[in-house]
């Protein structure tokens, strides 16, 4: 069964450092999502791609976060510089077309900022 791949699974960094997360969606899925999940809360959408285009990045802190999906396949989420409040689980998900489709989540990257 096809799965969403993410790496790394865990990342510990010091504040002011740069970090990057990678996501490879299920083959053929046009829509890719990056979510941030704080412990005890539901996932919060950071950015949504349709193919290589950004559909929604209204909750992305653009002064420090950036995301790209250059060829419409895999994607990278970057934080520079990291702050203590960025400690969270970063989840990537993909769906065939729109948000009316099932979203399949990857295992996530647990980020700890010291």
């Amino acid at each position, binding site marked *: 069964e096809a799965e969403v791949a993410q790496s790394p699974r865990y990342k510990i960094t010091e504040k002011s450092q740069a970090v990057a997360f990678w996501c490879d969606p299920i083959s053929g899925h046009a829509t890719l999502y990056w979510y941030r999940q704080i412990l005890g809360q539901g*996932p919060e959408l950071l950015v949504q791609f349709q193919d290589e285009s950004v559909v929604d990045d*209204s909750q992305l802190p653009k002064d420090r976060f950036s995301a790209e999906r250059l060829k419409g396949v895999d994607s990278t989420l970057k934080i520079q510089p990291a702050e203590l409040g960025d400690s969270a689980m970063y989840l990537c998900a993909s769906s065939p077309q729109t*948000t009316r489709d099932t979203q399949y989540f990857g295992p996530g990257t647990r980020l700890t900022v010291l």
Partner: protein
Amino acid sequence: QQPVQSPQAVILREGEDAVINCSSSKALYSVHWYRQKHGEAPVFLMILLKGGEQKGHEKISASFNEKKQQSSLYLTASQLSYSGTYFCGTGGNLLTQGGSEKLVFGKGTKLTVNP
């Protein structure tokens, strides 16, 4: 607007039933239900779409009341493996969410099933 889930937590004995509710203040076009175990990614359970279409697992059922802007997830004859946190994600459309169809997730309902 974040949907409101109730109850926040529920404890069951194996074999008992449970209902988890999800309410929104905005018109709903889709409701997605996920279960997440500690330290793991959310796993898809059910999707309900405006118009009555449903997709999901055989052993889980759900309802979608468009008029009341509510959805309920029904877990019957619970098993130990049902333990986890259940999230609903509500989707609007381009007209109701300022140009975005994104899912907004609730804070979750923690379900514990004991032997």
